[in-house]
């Protein structure tokens, strides 16, 4: 691997973007790795778990990591925020980065399907085969949630269409 030349990286702008999108703790991180020690993303072996993602952003790396799917593996468990000794709130930084990724249409496939499911069926995790299974045990084929309610689905779509997600034009 050749050396990264930090001189041309516009770290200031990257940090500003993250702060604008809700990750204002980014300059407080001291790279202690406490968040990584409890992070399921790190445990699952995703390369850009919270601490390293923050380091890359702090040093102005952006183009290189924008397509990385790691951030989409975040379970929003919030353990990092509870453990961080600097109140950097890494979870918020991960999500700020995710927002920027979404704006750049760099949404991971793993996140895309649930998103489309949500738009169409009202559930992020939904499978057609569940209908049969439900019938077998004597339940109505559709659960009494947004899946079975056209009105609820309509409300969800309205929310998604009119929020920042709608602007991306993916639905």
């Amino acid at each position, binding site marked *: *691997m*050749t*050396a*990264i*030349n*930090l*001189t041309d990286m516009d*770290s*200031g702008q990257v*940090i500003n973007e993250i702060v604008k999108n809700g990750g204002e703790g980014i*300059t*407080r*991180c*001291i*790279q202690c790795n406490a968040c990584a020690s409890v992070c399921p993303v790190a445990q699952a072996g995703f390369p850009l778990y919270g*601490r*390293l993602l923050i*380091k*890359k952003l*702090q*040093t102005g790396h952006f183009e290189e990591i924008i397509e990385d799917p790691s951030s989409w593996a975040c379970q929003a468990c919030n353990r990092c925020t509870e453990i961080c000794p*600097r109140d950097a709130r890494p979870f918020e930084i991960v999500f700020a980065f995710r927002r920027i990724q979404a704006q750049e249409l760099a949404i991971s496939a793993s996140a895309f399907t649930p998103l489309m499911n949500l738009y169409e069926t009202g559930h992020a995790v939904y499978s057609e085969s569940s209908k049969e299974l439900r019938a077998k045990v004597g339940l109505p084929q559709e659960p009494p949630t947004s899946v079975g309610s056209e009105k609820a689905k309509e409300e969800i779509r309205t929310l998604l269409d009119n929020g920042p997600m709608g602007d991306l034009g993916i639905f």
Partner: protein
Amino acid sequence: MAKVGVYVCHCGSNIAGVVDVQAVEEFARTLPEVTVARRNLFMCSDPGQEIIRQDIRDGLVDKVVVAACTPRTHEPIFRRVLEVEGLNKYLFEMANIRDQDSWVHAHDKKGATQKAKQIVASAVAKARNLAPLEDKYVDVEKAALVIGGGVAGIFSALDLANMGNKVYLVEKEPSIGGVMAQLDKTFPTNDCSACILTPVMVDAGNHPNIELLTYAEVESVDGYIGNFDVKIRKKQSYIDWNKCTGCGACAEACPVRVPNEYNAGLDNRPAAYIHFPQAVPKKAVIDIDACLNCAGRKIGRELKISKKTGKPLLAPCERACPAGAIDRSLNLDPKGELVEARVGAIVVATGFKVMEKECFKNLAPDSPNVMTALQLERLISATGPTEGKLLRLTDMRKPKTISFLSCVGSRDENHHTYCSRVCCMYMIKQAKLLKEKYQDLEIYMHFMDVRTPGKDFDEYYTSALAMGIHIIRGRVGGIDKLPGDRLRVQGYDADLSSNIEIDADMVILASAIELPETIKPLAQKMSLTLDGSGFFKELHPKLKPVETAVEGIFLAGCCQGPKDIPDTVAQAKGAAAAAAVPLSQGRVKIEPIISEIITDRCSGCGICVPLCPYGAISMDSVHEKPRAVIDITQCKGCGVCTTACSSSAIQLHGYTEDQIMSQIQALTA
């Protein structure tokens, strides 16, 4: 018959965890002339001491052996026990069964117990032969010498002077102030260094009890606590300081340009110069090595009259001086003037130097854009060469990217293994000051690890992070020079796990703090020793932090080890307080454990004279025959002469021949 009491200490589990103290106690009881043997968890505690006192009061013992830790810290405590009960305090002997036994033989309990018994037997044998000794006293000169006029020396001098002592403050430069006077602002509060230091310098300069001897160096130190005789050489300034008003006219007129020490060599100064604008005293000096002797005005040369103009031919400095302080016709002694003083105590506060960038060949030292942090300090100071503007001296342009390199020469087996303690903080300070002033400046700081352990220090570091200063974990390996006077810093970012490069316009080296080589002769003159890191060695790192092995000489500031201003001032005040003790007591004790010549036995061979490391022995005429005599104020009781004398004419009190022989007998029995 002596009545020896033996007291065995458990020292918690320090001794009792290894040595069978009960067995030692029982063994002690069987030794000749031992009347009582007891033991206690902590003999040095109040109840422990009381056991001995009660036995003395009951008339059971008249000589005391304590088998315990070490005489280094505890001998004075037990001697005092004897003293308060009316026994001569030198009838005490310590058996070191901790430092020399339980600590070193922790793995061999049986052997350690056996050794403890032998040590006790030997101590008892000596104790049986102990004789009372008398303390002697000498009067103390109520004056102090402070060497070094940095912030440490200034505070020590002021405190001693405020306590009513006469103080000689000796500084080798023309002005006091030291490195602090070179700093721009100071962490952790970022107050202007000159603003807080100058008033204190002025106080020291005006204090009625302080005799300021700047541009001066200590030539010799003789004597001992209470009565040191010092000779101080005032260097020749070639300018009459009684007349000089510090106007600086001579400096303006002088055509010479040589590197300016005050600006860390970043710019030049004339041969006639004033050290810096806030100098105390504000007096000019002529650097005679750099002086051109303009108009043929060599010092001491007669004044000539110009044939053309009929006016006297004067050097520019002479002509410029409105106060008439420069007269080059005078035959001034280049050696200056010798001042003699007698003082009761000495505070050494000679400070430090930073390693020059030339020591680091891999860091492009020949580039003017690589500079030490002390040079940067001058560059960003309002009184510096650019009046505080951050400019590259190669092109006078503002840099866009700066890299700071920490631990340059520190924590490095090739240079100094210690941490220089202030660099992390001053680098953060400099970075913050620059970022406040130039927000578009990119600042990288390469650290092995960031060390900010003082009060309010970590908060200072965190605030630098919030400003967007980049902290990079990883020591820099080298700097390459790029076209356009740029510098490529080759580093590694441990957090990214990647090699990194930074093309910087300037690189700042936080170079190590060290004791200058030039201090060594001074250390020798005062018989002071240096520690493994090369700084002045204190007597005990924890309990005697300002004392030295030479009684009456104390240490303050960075000459004792790297430290920041808060710690320097605290230590300086500590040193002043410690130095004031003998001055205020008015007399000091002379240890009676020193050597004495038994004149009847002395053959006058003179062997002992050159052997004494303290120069305490000389030959005198007794009944018209040469005989050795010892100056009791100089003798340190080292015993060298005692062992060397072939006539057994020298006796070291407290270690007489019968005492030592009986110890050996006990050990070999």
